[in-house]
């Protein structure tokens, strides 16, 4: 089979674009979720859109599954390769095709790194707003597939708010284009449907992104709190005061301690939690807003307030937050990053729950949190070499995700379901809702060849999951409405 598929692809791809020997395919065995690994049968590295189409058509004709891959930084196993299929890497699509400063947009290939977009737009005073912490590595194709966010999405939106158009192919190799350089397109909003579809509906080969004028200036207020609850209330107070910060992030003490050692961002290590609250705009506007932010944060009980004095200091304050994952990686052999979203008012309750889980599972769990939009990233520290610890970690994570659903939130805010959270989809959605997702998939890909087995569980899988779960103590609040 492997020889047949590789041979077929070699009919139209050069030798360097088809990998099938273990030592060549090994680098593709996992994405950022390294607990899941599998060697792909064949890796295809096409260089033109026509080649992508040919790969899809050939695989479609042979009934071979295809998994698209960008930079492989995904944290839910979305790009986990198919053992019996082709891993389709878009890594060679690295060009900016058109940068149009007058129209404030860029047309780029899917393999272009997120941060590179803002780099090329910078000379025109423009930038691409969504800024995932992985922005120096992750690709725009992956961002589109995951609807990635960043620390500035409360004010500037997610990928779905900043992409105008995508072009690509369906699983059968049919050319499609969703969206437009205008602000809307006729018919259903297929662009919204494609963004965040985890590579299950189409392979994206070109993306048109919106560029925004870079704000004149930005400053960040760093506030310390002696109780996590107070920091949570302060977030609500900022919003209630009519302020929409450019960024509003929280880190608890275990997280600040882990990063401080690593980046020396100047965090208050005595604080139970710190908030980073950013204001951007004209100098006068920022001054006005920072004054109001300080007032509100002080009234909410901040024990210390610091405002960045210049750009270098602003970046230093952020450096710890942006480096939180690698920093945690230094204090523990492995970490497991969760990604639930909750209504902000339930923050204290969820953090207390996580603290209880730390005791229950005897594992540490620092928290970083996109506080402004309720997106929580608890990081469970463990040692993957100890299978028993990995098991405890997964059980810990599952309980936290289900807690997120229970308080009215969701199992994933920005990292996607992938293979990782597929069982929790059975908790968040009813069988009829899951069946609707599958019907949508079939409208795009009747043979279910594109990234199969990801994002949407089969009913059989949910039944099996339910059985295991009930044995393990039963679902909490199974009758709770999930909306």
């Amino acid at each position: 089979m492997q020889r047949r598929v590789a041979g077929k692809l070699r009919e139209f791809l050069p030798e360097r674009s088809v990998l099938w020997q273990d030592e060549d395919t090994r680098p593709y065995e996992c994405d950022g979720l390294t607990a899941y690994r599998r060697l792909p049968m064949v890796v295809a590295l096409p260089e033109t859109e026509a080649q992508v189409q040919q790969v899809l058509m050939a695989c479609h004709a042979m009934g071979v599954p295809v998994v698209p891959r960008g930079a492989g930084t995904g944290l839910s196993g979305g790009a986990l390769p198919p053992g019996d299929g082709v891993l389709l890497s878009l890594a060679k699509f690295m060009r900016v095709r058109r940068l149009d400063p007058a129209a404030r947009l860029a047309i780029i290939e899917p393999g272009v790194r997120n941060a590179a977009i803002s780099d090329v737009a910078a000379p025109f005073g423009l930038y691409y707003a969504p800024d995932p912490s992985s922005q120096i590595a992750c690709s725009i194709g992956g961002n589109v597939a995951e609807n990635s966010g960043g620390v500035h999405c409360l004010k500037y939106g997610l990928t779905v708010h900043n992409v105008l158009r995508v072009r690509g192919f369906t699983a059968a190799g049919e050319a499609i284009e969703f969206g437009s350089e205008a602000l809307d397109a006729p018919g259903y909003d297929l662009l919204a449907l494609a963004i965040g579809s985890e590579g299950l509906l189409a392979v994206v080969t070109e993306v048109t992104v919106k560029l925004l004028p870079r704000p004149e200036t930005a400053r960040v207020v760093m506030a310390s709190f002696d109780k996590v609850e107070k920091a949570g209330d302060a977030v609500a107070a900022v919003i209630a005061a009519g302020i929409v910060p450019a960024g509003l992030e929280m880190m608890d003490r275990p997280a600040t301690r882990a990063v401080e050692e690593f980046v020396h961002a100047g965090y208050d290590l005595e604080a139970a939690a710190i908030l980073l609250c950013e204001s951007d705009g004209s100098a006068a506007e920022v001054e006005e807003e920072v004054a109001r932010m300080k007032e509100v944060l002080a009234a909410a009980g901040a024990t210390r307030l610091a405002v960045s004095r210049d750009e270098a200091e602003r970046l230093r304050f952020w450096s710890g937050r942006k480096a939180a994952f690698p920093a945690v990686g230094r204090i523990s052999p492995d970490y497991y990053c969760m990604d639930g979203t909750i209504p902000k008012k339930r923050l204290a309750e969820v953090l207390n729950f996580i603290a209880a889980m730390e005791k229950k599972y005897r594992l540490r769990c620092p928290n970083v949190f996109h506080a402004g939009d309720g997106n929580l990233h608890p990081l469970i520290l463990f040692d993957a070499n100890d299978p028993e610890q990995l098991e405890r970690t997964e059980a810990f994570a599952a309980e936290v995700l289900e807690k997120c659903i229970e308080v009215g939130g969701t199992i994933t805010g920005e990292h996607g379901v992938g293979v990782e959270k597929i069982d929790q989809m059975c908790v968040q959605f009813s069988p009829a809702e899951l069946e609707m997702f599958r019907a949508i998939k079939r409208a795009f890909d009747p043979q279910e060849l594109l990234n199969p087995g990801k994002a949407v569980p089969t009913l059989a899988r949910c039944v099996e999951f339910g059985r295991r779960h009930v044995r393990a103590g039963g679902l909490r609040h199974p009758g709770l409405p999930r909306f």
Partner: protein
Amino acid sequence: MSFEPIQERIREAAGRGSALRIRGGGSKDFYGNAPRGELLDTRAHAGIVSYEPTELVLSARCGTSLLEIQEVLAEKSQLLPFEPPHFGPGATLGGCVAAGLSGPRRASAGAVRDFVLGAVILDGRGQRLAFGGQVMKNVAGYDVARLLAGSLGTLGVILEVSLKVLPRSPAEATLRLELPQAEALRKLNGWAGRPLPISASAWRGDELRLRLSGAESAIRAAVQAIGGETVAQEEAASYWTGVREQADAFFAGELPLWRLSVPSNAAPVELQGEQLLEWGGALRWLRSSADAGTVRAAAMRAGGHATLFRAPDKAAGAFTPLAPALARLHRGLKKAFDPAGILNPGRLYPEF
């Protein structure tokens, strides 16, 4: 009222294979292709389910009046950022989302779909399904909630919607400038590339009006940078309402009204008839009796599409026909949501 009566109607109609025409306040009866089928009135399923100003989220049932929602938000100095047109006192939330129409603030703030966080629907089988949720970030499952915006009721009866809302800006000002169209477009696109707090724009007959919304200091600076003459607050407010609600004199009379959605920096679209431009140049209203083929071809050349928005005769089809690959996906989705084809058939495209 609970949703069961609506569910019952759908099940019964699906059994008989007879079309249902979903309707809230009827304020958008004119929009899209002609409605047909038995009337399914959504207005009894009304009420705000939850509103948390500090979460920036409001959830309400489909029959809730838009006016009521806006009043409740205004009490907390918040608003619907996409500034939806009502087109009549009876406009409901369900109709607003199904039509997917956004108002003057669209270019700067975003469209209806950008603020939809979650939705509960009854599909064409009468199944109650919930997608998305009440949180700002949610990537579990396909983004069906956003897909509903603009689907004109063809995928399901929208029972409940959760929206992201935003605080009102502390200050607002409107400027008037004398500019011919090409010059206005050039300036609008230039300003859009600079961090200026422009929240609406409208050009007609060599006159451009700009609305600025933001912090006091930002407005002061922008007034300085842009120039022109400041319009008195009250006059400005009624002007923007007139544009949003199409009560402005431009929209009066019987000539067909076309909506051209094009890239904001597209050159002036040369067509017979008068034009009013919004959204920094990305939306061009045209009053014209030119034939549909001519208008659609011109919009396509400009990089966009044309909708026959209001017209006594919509034989040419309200919306620009879809490319074959997209049409196939549309039919596939319609079949997934509404296999019997009973929900607002033909309202979006004649073939479904």
